């Protein structure tokens, strides 16, 4: 209905030739983007595609290296979020950027509180707040402290705040990732209302259903480059996922994967989970069996629960239900050390937050896990440490000045290899690799893929997660597909091709309803 009405508007925000680099990574390369008033524009792409960077460049969080931004035809330079707000661009981030210790009303009006005689008029502020909340159908008490509400409500309040400023353009950076269907619907109602009032909305999400439900246009990014801009009605889900994941398999040396499942017949699985689930409903109960010498891919879009699943196996998220067997023995994994002692290793998704110790040296970063496993009083001798470090620097071809260089001065790919080395050193039987190739250059990617297959051939069992489909297809012998925090399927041998995977991930075109 009104969906196409505004498609004819001329673009109001025009970004051309945007480029942005971080040490070691080219995050954006010659990206163009257009936003019209009165449309909802989805920005799609897998991890590291550059969505967040693009948004942050637009809102002045990062200065851009190259490119131009025009607002209604006028070139502008946006230096800070405040600057962006002055230009009418407001943002709501995935993490709630509000003050948990203030009341709801204050969070809505901080910085522009209604005043009488120079003092904040609380009565008026609360009144205005409750009006606003009512209008948006948010059930929150303006006088209650923000952190007494769930993240979902907080997120809605954040949107309410963003809307409340005189905004012409609203950026929603994965605001729905922690909301349930009802709440998502409420937000959608809100978004439609805004769109009809002529607000241009950039909507970043990983949920395809949501894109197809509400968006007018889609811009797809991949690896920091623009794939294209499409009208929603003219792009099928299948095509969208294909564009996001990258269809063309890069011209790399062929890797051969033995996908014959029958070889595991009668063998004891090294890992077996029965109805395992973790606390705070991060992942629904799942069953899982993994055998020696196989690489199992865990695919699904970001936020589908793929990382949460492996974290539960490793004990990084505390399992609350279900049973877990290692080599046929029922064990309880309460904390990562338990898992490590059972021969597990876990390369975390977010290298910066969960992986590296920035100020520690390469050597220390490599041996830390082994050291933690052997215990405090059985210190690995210095000579031995150096030997290990040198060995793995050679083995993985880590580029570092020397083994005592702090890891923070290495490039992303080399940091990743250091962490890989850290886990290889513990000689695990079962390895979890969550996005080991994220944000690193193509050459290193291939090296890591080879390494994964080599490890499998050494009879290790590997759980592999990657946002890049081709990489998974080339390395995995079996694939677990996750959608909406549920395990929705396991693809083997015959089914393990791109279109089947994407279809399973996408959940089919005719499947209806919001998540």
């Amino acid at each position, binding site marked *: 209905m009104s969906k196409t009405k505004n498609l004819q508007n001329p673009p109001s925000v025009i970004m051309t030739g945007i480029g942005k680099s971080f*040490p*070691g990574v080219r995050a954006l390369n010659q990206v163009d983007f257009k936003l019209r008033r009165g449309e909802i524009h989805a920005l799609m792409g897998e991890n590291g595609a550059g969505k967040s960077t693009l948004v942050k460049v637009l809102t002045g969080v990062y*200065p851009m290296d190259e490119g131009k931004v025009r607002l209604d035809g006028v070139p502008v330079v946006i230096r800070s979020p405040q600057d962006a707000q002055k230009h009418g661009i407001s943002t709501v981030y995935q993490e709630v950027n509000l003050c948990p210790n203030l009341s709801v009303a204050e969070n809505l009006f901080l910085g522009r509180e209604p005043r009488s005689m120079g003092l904040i008029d609380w009565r008026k502020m609360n009144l205005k707040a409750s009006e606003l909340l009512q209008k948006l159908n948010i059930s929150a008490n303006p006088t209650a402290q923000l952190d007494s509400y769930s993240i979902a409500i907080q997120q809605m309040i954040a949107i309410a705040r963003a809307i409340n400023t005189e905004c012409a353009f609203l950026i929603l950076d994965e605001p729905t990732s922690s909301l349930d269907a009802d709440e998502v619907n409420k937000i959608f109602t809100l978004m439609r209302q805004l769109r009809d009032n002529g607000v241009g909305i950039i909507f970043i999400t990983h949920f395809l259903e949501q894109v197809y439900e509400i968006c007018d246009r889609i811009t797809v990014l991949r690896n920091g480059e623009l794939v294209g801009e499409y009208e929603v009605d003219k792009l099928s889900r299948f095509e969208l996922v294909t564009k996001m994941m990258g269809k063309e398999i890069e011209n790399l040396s062929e890797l051969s994967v033995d996908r014959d499942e029958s070889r595991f017949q009668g063998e004891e699985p090294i890992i077996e989970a029965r109805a395992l689930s973790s606390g705070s409903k991060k992942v629904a109960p799942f069953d899982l069996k993994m055998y020696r010498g196989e690489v199992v891919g865990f695919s699904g879009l970001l936020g589908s629960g793929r990382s949460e699943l492996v974290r539960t196996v490793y004990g*990084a998220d505390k399992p609350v239900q279900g049973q877990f067997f290692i080599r046929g023995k029922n064990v309880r994994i309460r*904390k*990562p*050390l338990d898992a*490590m002692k059972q021969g597990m290793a*876990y390369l*975390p998704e977010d290298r910066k*937050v*969960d*992986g*590296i*110790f*920035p*100020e*520690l*040296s390469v050597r*220390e970063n490599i041996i*830390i*896990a082994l*050291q*933690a*496993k052997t215990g*405090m*009083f059985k*210190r*690995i001798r210095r000579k031995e440490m150096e030997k290990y470090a040198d060995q793995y620097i050679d083995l993985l071809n880590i*580029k570092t*000045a020397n083994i*005592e260089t702090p890891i923070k*001065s290495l*490039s992303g790919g080399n940091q990743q290899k250091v962490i890989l080395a*850290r886990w290889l050193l513990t000689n695990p039987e079962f390895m979890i690799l969550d996005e080991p190739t994220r944000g690193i250059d193509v050459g290193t990617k291939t090296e890591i893929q080879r390494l994964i297959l080599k490890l499998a051939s050494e009879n290790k069992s590997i759980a592999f997660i990657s946002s890049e489909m081709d990489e998974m297809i080339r390395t995995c012998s079996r694939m677990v597909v996750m959608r909406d925090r549920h395990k929705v399927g396991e693809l083997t041998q015959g089914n393990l091709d791109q279109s089947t995977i994407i279809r399973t991930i996408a959940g089919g075109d005719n499947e209806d309803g919001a998540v």
Partner: protein
Amino acid sequence: MKMGLFNDRKGPAMLSPSAGKKLLNNRLIFSLLVLMVVVVQNIITTPNFFEITMTNGLLSGYIPNILDEASELIIVTMGMTLVIAASGGVDLSVGPIMAIAASFCGLLLNGSEYRTDVYHSPYFLAILFGLVGAALCGAFNGFLVSRLKIQPMIATLILFTAGRSIAKQITHGQTIYIMNPTYKWLGVQIPGIPIRTTILVSIAIVILVVLLVKLTSLGLYIQSVGINGSAARLVGLNSRVIKFMAFVICGILAGVAGLVSSSSVGSVNSGELGLSIEMDAILAVALGGNNLGGGKFSIAGSVIGAYTIQAITTTLYAMNVRADQLNVFKAIIIIVIIVASSEVFKEKVNRLFRHITKKNVPVGGLSDERQ
């Protein structure tokens, strides 16, 4: 000469390549500079600065004096370094813990008498008892910090205010005098050894801590927990236990300092032992280039920091600055060191420098380690 010695057993921070720029970026450089200025100043004003004489079977002179007086501070600073590295907070209660340890020790030696020549229990048992007392105090702090997640400064505030009174309770409210000459072994001199025991003890403690940090993986654990708690958990470290241990060790070391201090004056006066040493110890850690927010630490840095503070104090005493006015100079010197070694200041100086030379360096030019 002292520095040379410690440079050999470098803490991790000292390992960076010795390029000129790296050296300037080293936060320790300013403390060293001040230490050097103080030493040079002393050499100029007091010609007998390097003179070491043998008096009464003991080496004496300016340098042994400074080493002697810095020893308590160094011992306490070692513990403080670990606590700061692991928890990112400070332990305010080290002074009172010193008093408590000495009181336990004195109680065992004296019974309930105020003055004794004859020990009521063996000396080593008393020392052990004192250290156990100190360890308990450390454990109390550690419990509050690691289990109840109370900020270290506030958690240790409790013992800071109550500690001396507790010590007083232990000694039945009196100053204990221990006249047995062996009591002075720990704090003054063991017959036949020409070097003050305090110096030996402080060196021993530094070596012990270095060994503890280097021979076990405690140092690595503490740094890991201090730098990135979440990553530390994923590699299988238990941050609670490690923080707890840091506090216990800090308590024990404060206990050692307390025993040494009490031995050197031959009495236990819980109101006096280690008075306001906590502030000096924190400063020593900061001057040593360690981040008070936790993480990486350098034992060598802390040692140098402690000597810097003691050298300033001793020099100012020698310049007839009154004890109560000393703080003014201390404050100024410290703030200058801290400001000069702060990141923002360096950046500002760099920018100014660039402005003067009109070099066109891109904005991100400071972080030159891209790949």
